[in-house]
C-alpha cells in the first residue's frame, strides 16, 4: 500500500503561543487505512488534520509525503453562499454528473440541489460538504467533526455513503469526533494526542 502521509518528528507551534500544538510527532498513513484522532480540546487534532491537508507547515521536523487528492469536511460546511448546491459541487468536480446525482439522492438532498447554499440548514450544508469531499475521488478523506448537525438517521446515511466509497475506492480516512457513537470506523486504530 502506497504511503499518503509521512511526518517525521514534526512539531507545530502557532505564532504567539508559548507551547507547541504538536511536538515530536511521527505518523505514517497508507492508502486504505483509517485513523481516529482522539484527545482533549486543544490537543492538536484539528491542527494535525490541517497539516495532512497542507494547510499548515511544521515548524520543525520533516514531511516526507503529502496526499495528492484530499477530500476534507471542515467543522463548518464552507460552501460558496450564493452558489447552488450543484454549483458548489461542480466547482470542485465539474464532470461528476451521475455520481453527484446519486450521492444527492442517497443523502436526501435531491429536492434542494438547485437551491443556493445560503438557504440550506446546517445539516443540509454538512451533507453537501461531505458529497463535495467524496466527489473529488480523494486519496484521503479528512473528517473534522463535520456531522454535528445531522440527526441519527441522516448520520447513518452519511456514514454508509462514506463506507461504500471507502470500500470501492480504498481511500484513507482520518476522523475526529467527540461522540464515540458517531465514528465512521469505530473499531479502527486511534491516535491519542495531548497530555
Amino acid at each position, binding site marked *: 500500500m502506497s504511503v499518503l502521509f509521512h511526518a517525521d518528528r514534526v512539531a507545530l507551534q502557532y505564532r504567539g503561543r508559548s507551547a507547541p500544538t504538536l511536538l515530536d510527532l511521527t505518523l505514517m498513513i497508507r492508502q486504505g487505512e483509517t485513523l481516529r484522532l482522539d484527545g482533549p480540546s486543544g490537543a492538536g487534532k484539528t491542527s494535525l488534520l490541517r497539516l495532512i491537508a*497542507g*494547510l499548515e507547515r511544521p515548524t520543525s521536523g520533516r514531511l516526507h509525503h503529502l496526499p495528492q487528492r*484530499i477530500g*476534507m469536511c*471542515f467543522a*463548518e460546511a*464552507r460552501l*460558496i453562499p450564493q452558489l447552488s448546491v450543484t454549483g458548489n459541487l461542480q*466547482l*470542485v468536480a465539474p464532470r461528476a454528473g451521475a455520481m453527484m446525482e446519486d450521492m444527492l439522492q442517497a443523502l436526501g438532498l435531491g429536492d434542494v440541489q438547485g437551491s443556493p447554499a445560503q438557504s440550506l440548514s446546517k445539516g443540509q450544508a454538512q451533507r453537501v460538504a461531505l458529497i463535495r469531499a467524496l466527489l473529488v475521488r480523494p486519496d484521503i478523506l479528512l473528517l473534522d467533526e463535520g456531522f454535528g448537525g445531522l440527526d441519527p438517521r441522516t448520520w447513518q446515511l452519511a456514514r454508509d455513503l462514506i463506507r461504500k466509497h471507502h470500500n470501492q475506492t480504498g481511500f484513507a480516512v482520518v476522523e475526529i469526533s467527540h461522540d464515540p457513537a458517531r465514528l465512521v470506523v469505530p473499531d479502527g486504530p486511534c491516535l491519542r494526542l495531548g497530555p
Partner: protein
Amino acid sequence: MQHAIPPMMRPMIRMAAFGAGLAGLVALWAFAAQQNLPAILPGPLAVARALLDLVQDAAFWRDALLPSLGRAAAGLGLAKALGAPLGLVGWHLPLVSACLAPARLILMGVPAPVLAILCILWFDGGPITIVLCVCALLLPVFQIAVAEGLSAIDPQLAEMARVFRLPLRRCLRWIIWPALWTALGPALRVAMANALRVSLLTELLSGTPGLGAEVQAAQSWLQTDRLFALVLVILALIGLIEAALSAIAGRRRP
C-alpha cells in the same frame, strides 16, 4: 406611514416625490430669474434653448465633450492600472504598504485644485497633464480599495479552495472577485464621477480645449445661459455614470 403604502407603489411614489421636488426647484429658479438680469441668472426656458443648441452642435461633441470624457476615462484607467497592483502588493507585503503610505497620504491630502495647478506647472498643461492629474488623485482610491477588498476574502473559503485545489479562474470568479467587489464597486462609483470633475477642473485651470474650457469661455463672455446648459450636461453625465454603476453593482449583488 411607509407601512400603509403597498410595496409595489413605493418606487412610483418616490418618483412622484422626486418630480415634485424638481418642479419646485424649477419654479423657484424661474421666479428668481424674473427678479435678475439674464446675464446673472437666466430663466429655465433660456437655458433649455441653450442646452438644445449645445446638444445639436457637432463641434461641441467633437471638440469638447468627447475629448473631456476620453481624458477622464484615460486618467481613471491609468489610476486603476497602477493602483490595483500596488494595492495587491501592499496587501501581500505590509512593509510595501507602509513604504507607500507617505505618498498616498500626500496625494489624498492635497486638495484637487492645488494638485491640478501643480500638474499644470510641472507638465505642459495639455491633455497629458489632465490625464496625469486624474490618475494622481484616483490612484490611492484604487490602491486602498483593492487592499481592503482582498482583506475581505473569507479565509475559510480560501482554505477550502486550497484543499480542493480549485483552479485560479474559479477562485477568482467565486471567492476573490465577490470580496474585491465589496470595496472596488463603491470606489469605482466615486472615482468615475471624480475623474470627470477633476478633468473639468484641470481643463478649466489650464485652458485645454474641452468641457472645462467651454465653461471658462461661457463665463468670460457672460453667456450665462450656455454656462447653465454646460452645468446641466455635466450633471447629466455624472448622473448617468452613477446610475450605470448602481445598476452593475445591483446585478453583481448575490
